[in-house]
């Protein structure tokens, strides 16, 4: 598709109106002066108070009035034209054939093309692999660190301020965040959420009978779905009609049933919230009775489902 008429190669005007429209010049001049006032006002505000709203208003005014002046110049002052132009010719079979021929010159008179081609590809692939290899320096491969948490039997539970927590620090109807004493709080395996429920109503999985002394339970605070922090606790206001207590993540609303030891009752999480066994020491301080019931944090392919 092409038209060889030479005079249409560049934008050729076929409608043209020259000369400023009435009032356009005064309008543009006024807007430009208004814009200048806006800019000056911006500087004054910046030096005087620095008020964000006034800064935004004055600078926006300077820009919008400038835009208005430019629009006025485009539509009412500079020559108004409509032009027509040839669309460029895109395909040129002759040039394509010629280029192909020139590219083929590389192998002119070469007999072992396939051997050289294969060797070249091998070198290229090996070089690409070598160039990509330093990527491994960016981080360790996923190993045991991810399964390892700071929790050990007997490790005391402390609050955000580092003070040891006793059973009395965990009220009913709310939750408390706790950490292993002396550990790095930012590690995903550290934070746990403590809840206090009626021991008679718990149906913990077998083997966890002594994990909740006095009805106090600890669960990993990191959601097993995508790793956000569990930050919501649903406590029944009136048992007969309320839903059972649950811990929820505010990112995608996975809900875990505390009475059954963290089973998923709603939302996208695929694994129960890992539970941490608790003991109460002779000093009354809460202690871990061992490690979590399962791997903490978001799932990855190596996570085994118990």
């Amino acid at each position, binding site marked *: 598709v092409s038209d060889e008429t030479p005079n249409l190669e560049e934008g050729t005007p076929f409608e043209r109106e020259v000369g400023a429209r009435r009032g356009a010049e005064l309008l543009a001049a006024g807007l430009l002066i208004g814009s200048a006032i806006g800019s000056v006002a911006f500087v004054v505000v910046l030096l005087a108070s620095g008020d964000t709203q006034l800064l935004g208003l004055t600078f926006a005014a300077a820009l919008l009035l400038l835009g208005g002046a430019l629009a006025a110049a*485009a539509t009412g002052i500079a020559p108004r034209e409509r032009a027509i132009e040839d669309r460029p010719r895109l395909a040129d079979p002759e040039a394509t054939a010629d280029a192909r021929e020139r590219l083929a010159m590389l192998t002119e008179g070469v007999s072992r093309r396939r051997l050289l081609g294969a060797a070249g590809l091998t070198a290229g692939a090996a070089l690409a692999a070598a160039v990509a290899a330093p990527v491994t320096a960016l981080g360790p491969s996923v190993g045991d660190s991810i399964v390892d948490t700071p929790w050990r039997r007997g490790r005391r539970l402390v609050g955000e301020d580092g003070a040891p927590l006793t059973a009395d620090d965990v009220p009913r109807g709310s939750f408390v965040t706790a950490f292993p004493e002396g550990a790095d709080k930012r590690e995903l395996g550290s934070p746990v959420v403590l809840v206090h429920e009626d021991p008679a109503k718990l149906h913990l999985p077998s083997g966890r009978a002594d994990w909740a002394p006095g009805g106090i339970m600890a669960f990993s605070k990191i959601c097993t779905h995508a790793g956000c922090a569990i930050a919501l606790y649903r406590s029944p206001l009136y048992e007969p009609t309320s839903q059972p207590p649950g811990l929820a993540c505010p990112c995608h609303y996975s809900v875990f049933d505390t009475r059954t030891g963290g089973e998923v009752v709603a939302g996208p999480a695929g694994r129960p919230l890992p539970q941490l066994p608790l003991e109460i020491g002779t000093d009354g301080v809460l202690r871990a009775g061992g490690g979590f019931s399962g791997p903490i944090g978001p799932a990855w392919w190596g996570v085994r489902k118990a």
Partner: protein
Amino acid sequence: VTDALRFIDERTAASRPLRKALRYVFPDHWSFLLGEIALYSFVVLVATGVFLALFFEPSLDPRIYHGPYAPLQGHEVTAAYDSALGLSFEVPAGLLMRQTHHWAADVFVVAIVMHLVRIFFTGAFRKPRELNYLVGVTLLALAVLEGFLGYSLIDDLLSGMGLAIAYGVAMALPLVGGDVAHTIWGGEFPGEVIQSRLYIGHVFLLPAVIATLIALHLTLIVRTRHTQFRDPPASERHVVGTPMWPGYALRSLALLAFVAGVLFALGGLIQVNPIWQWGPYQPWLGTNGAQPDWYLGWLIGALRIAPPVDVVVGGYTVIPEPFWGGVFFPSVVFGVLYLWPWLEQRLITRDLSRHELLDAPRDNPRRTAIGAAFFAWVVTVFAAGAADRIFLSVGVPYDTQVWLFRAAIFVVPAVVYFLARRWVAPS
């Protein structure tokens, strides 16, 4: 000016291409401005971003906050969060720049999406513009990623929650997820090095790639010239419109000034991302009602309504659940977008010829109906991301909504397709 032109021409032979460029013809249609709005938002992003970079400290080193914001005084924060608070409360015009930068990012992605919608429904992606369409779709993906990196940098509570989800999604990649996530984060989440990696990505790598692709996008447009609606004397052979100089250049500069003016007005007058209210991030902290920037809403929606299915083989979680919403869904969306020019060619039009004139949506009712259904599908998932907000404002229980949305992602596109086929008749 004559002398300057001669000076340059004698050294670069620039006058001939300049003469041609000054007469480049731009068709006149309002919908062609959408791409320009995206371009000018990017200009504002670079300008405000340079300002912010002069003050922002990309480091997670802990320090005690001593700035003017009383509720945080004496709290331990990171250097990144501290410097972002400093930009908000202490640096002259800092809050204006920060908020304008944020608004510009939101508008940038809106404009790209609207531009894509225009391109899609008018068939502007057809031969000879398929390559440029691919560049455009890539720019959309990079713009979303760049925006995510930007608000992840600040280390406020929302940015930390977003990064936690990103880590969860990376971990969910089948077989390689654990290693990929540990490579990106330099170990287990949250770690320390992620901050400097986000920073170099946000202020250098991605902007450089985006700027390069924008240049390629524009170059390819100039090579093919603009498309145009059927409006004689415009034809498959001729493009008709306003020449670059003087008409179009003035108009486009006016648009630049308007876009920048509106963005600075938004940045000055309408609060966005008040990081001091969210507080600093710690892995054990979360907040209810957390919503990302709008352009990530479709992903949080997908993560929320995806079925709770882990694929477990031999006890190993080969495909963890976040894969469906965080990887599979966006891959399908971008896969369809990338392949559309060829899907349409093979399945609908069987038309391999060159098209310089645009379709009106009624000219190709099947494309229009499929496109409307496709966009309705994505918008439905997007709306699901706001289910917790809908619960608060309308009262429909969250669990009920999840099931409603799961049904809606099938029903809504079907209904939209049906209605579009009924309403859109070929002219």
